[in-house]
């Protein structure tokens, strides 16, 4: 991008020089983005409430408290058609309405910041970069449902997010934006942080509330939903970090404004953490309806090293992968499900041709089954059985009936598991089986791993014509599997070889063959 400026006169003044530089909005990474929840991230100092207030911070709360009834706030949220950004996509305004109608007192407002997906960092970035937007959104929700107490459930592995939240809560209290008689009104709201110990299942709302109560983080059947009986059996409203961060903007700019952005049935913006085999790793916010292709190739800059794009995983370890044919799928709650994946909370992992889809599915399955809380049988045992089958397939010991068995177990887990963790654990396996079935079959019938990843199915050998006998591979081989004299062709002993791939990396002559 700097090439455009190469012809610039070095003697131009500073002002002209700056004008010749690209603006963020001219960069491919930013030109298609629309920043609502990320509006302040990277712009303001998150440790100074003054910088948040200077950019209309707490004006939405002030407006709601003095100009709107709680029902009007809920009306705006419903009209905005904001769908919960935690993944399930339930309409936020309707959720708030359920909590408001619950007669019991007290009521609680809870922020789910237990972001646990591998490769996801959306919530962390918002809490670190703009904690007040989440606090303000929670206060607005509290006013709307009639609550005076809130909890942010944030994993302890996010120390910086927690530090910034603590500072932000302290500063908001000092200015009377949290506490008693906020802005001189009758509205009181106290906010607490609960540090989670990092169990993935605690991102499930009933397990999360159990954890706040000091109990073991295990889910329970719903109904009753938290809006009726949540924390300490009282009406509670649980939303994700991103949903709360968007709330002040919706109140300030109006429901129509928000509903006009993005897709018809999924208005607003989607936030994704782009990771994996992609050039521009980062955090993006795009209008719903942007296609996967635009996200991965225009914003993300495509796959590095001239490699071929193979698949993209959305929804984390409980989501699914989509192949190249699905790249024109618009990103919104319904289109992604229709295509065979899920929106999830916002992780997006790109993989290239060097990734084995059996291994890829196995990775997520290993994660999800290790994180099963063990309370219900389908999740605890189903996940374990699926992992055994996938391990067998990747070791080259797969049986023809294994694919049917995977589908049978997956169906039962989906239907019978207690919570979303068990219901969605088979997701990555089912999606990869749907789109990359041939790859599974190659493992089972041909005993081959097409991506040359699965160690039980590949062998390393040296191409005699290319080998110069430089001895680099032999010196670097950690298991001593390579032998040969200087200047003579080397040999790899397949019995000793650990298939670590170090020889491929160190060979300067491309003389190592993987089959």
């Amino acid at each position, binding site marked *: 991008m700097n090439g455009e400026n190469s012809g*610039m006169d070095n003697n131009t003044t500073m002002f002209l020089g700056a004008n010749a530089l690209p603006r963020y909005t001219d960069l491919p990474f930013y030109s298609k983005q629309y920043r609502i929840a990320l509006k302040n991230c990277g712009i303001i100092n998150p440790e100074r409430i003054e910088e948040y207030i200077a950019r209309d911070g707490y004006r939405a709360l002030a407006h709601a408290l003095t100009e709107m009834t709680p029902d009007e706030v809920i009306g705006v949220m419903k009209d905005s058609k904001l769908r919960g950004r935690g993944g399930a996509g339930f309409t936020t305004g309707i959720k708030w309405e359920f909590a408001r109608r619950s007669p019991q007192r007290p009521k609680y407002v809870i922020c789910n910041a237990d972001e646990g997906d591998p490769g996801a960092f959306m919530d962390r970035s918002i809490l670190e970069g*703009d904690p007040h937007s989440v606090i303000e959104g929670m206060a607005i929700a509290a006013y709307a449902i009639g609550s005076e107490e809130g909890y942010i459930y944030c994993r302890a592995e996010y120390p*910086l997010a927690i530090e910034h939240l603590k500072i932000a809560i302290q500063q908001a209290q000092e200015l009377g934006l949290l506490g008693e008689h906020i*802005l001189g009104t009758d509205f009181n709201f106290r906010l607490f942080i609960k540090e989670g110990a990092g169990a993935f299942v605690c991102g499930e709302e009933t397990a999360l509330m159990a954890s706040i109560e000091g109990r073991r983080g295990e889910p329970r059947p719903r109904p009753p939903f938290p809006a009726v009986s949540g924390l300490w059996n009282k009406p509670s409203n649980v939303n994700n970090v991103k949903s709360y961060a968007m709330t002040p903007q919706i109140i300030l700019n109006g429901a129509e404004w928000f509903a006009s952005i993005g897709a018809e049935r999924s208005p607003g913006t989607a936030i994704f953490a782009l990771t994996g085999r992609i050039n521009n790793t980062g955090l993006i916010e795009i209008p719903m309806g942007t296609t996967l292709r635009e996200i991965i190739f225009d914003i993300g800059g495509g796959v590095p090293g001239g490699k071929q794009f193979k698949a993209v995983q959305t929804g984390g370890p409980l989501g699914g992968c989509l192949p190249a044919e699905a790249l024109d799928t618009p990103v919104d709650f319904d289109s992604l499900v229709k295509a065979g994946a899920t929106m999830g909370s916002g992780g997006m992992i790109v993989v290239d041709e060097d990734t084995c889809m059996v291994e890829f599915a196995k990775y997520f399955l290993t994660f999800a089954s290790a994180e099963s809380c063990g309370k219900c049988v389908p999740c605890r045992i189903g996940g374990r059985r699926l992992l055994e089958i996938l391990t067998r397939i990747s070791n080259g010991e797969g049986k023809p009936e294994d694919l049917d068995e995977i589908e049978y177990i997956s169906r039962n887990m989906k239907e019978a598991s207690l919570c979303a963790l068990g219901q969605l654990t088979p997701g990555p396996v089912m999606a990869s089986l749907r789109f990359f079935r041939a790859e599974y079959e190659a493992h089972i019938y041909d005993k081959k791993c097409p991506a040359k990843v699965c160690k039980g199915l590949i062998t390393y050998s040296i191409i005699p014509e290319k080998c110069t006998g430089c001895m680099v591979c032999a010196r670097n081989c950690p298991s001593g599997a390579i032998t040969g004299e200087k200047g003579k062709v080397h040999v790899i002993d397949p019995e000793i070889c650990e298939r670590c791939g170090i020889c491929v990396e160190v060979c300067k002559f491309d003389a190592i063959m993987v089959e």
Partner: protein
Amino acid sequence: MGKLNSVAELVDFQQRVKRELQEVKQKRIIITVGTGTCGLAAGAGETLEQIRIELEKRNIDAMINRVGCIGICVREPLVDVQLPGQPRITYANVKPPMVARIIDEHILAGQPVQEWVLGVVPEEW
């Protein structure tokens, strides 16, 4: 600082801090470093330390500001330089050895180091 007891007081407070921030932008050199987890993981802590050292060496009075993640994590550590009344210009992948040149050329000579510039933060952001 006391409590804000009404919406009017919040609005007054907002006007005041806005004015103060504007004044700082007009008067002072502001160096902004992305120190979210992504920035720190990429070495923003070391870069920040180097900025302090190099500023002190040259006896330059600049305000150092810390912000969260602006999104393009792959280009961290990100360092913004904003001269008084000038736009905020972001440098990408700023490692400690790069700091001295940015200070000498951009802050002291008024010429941004173009080859390291990511972009100009739009005023409306």
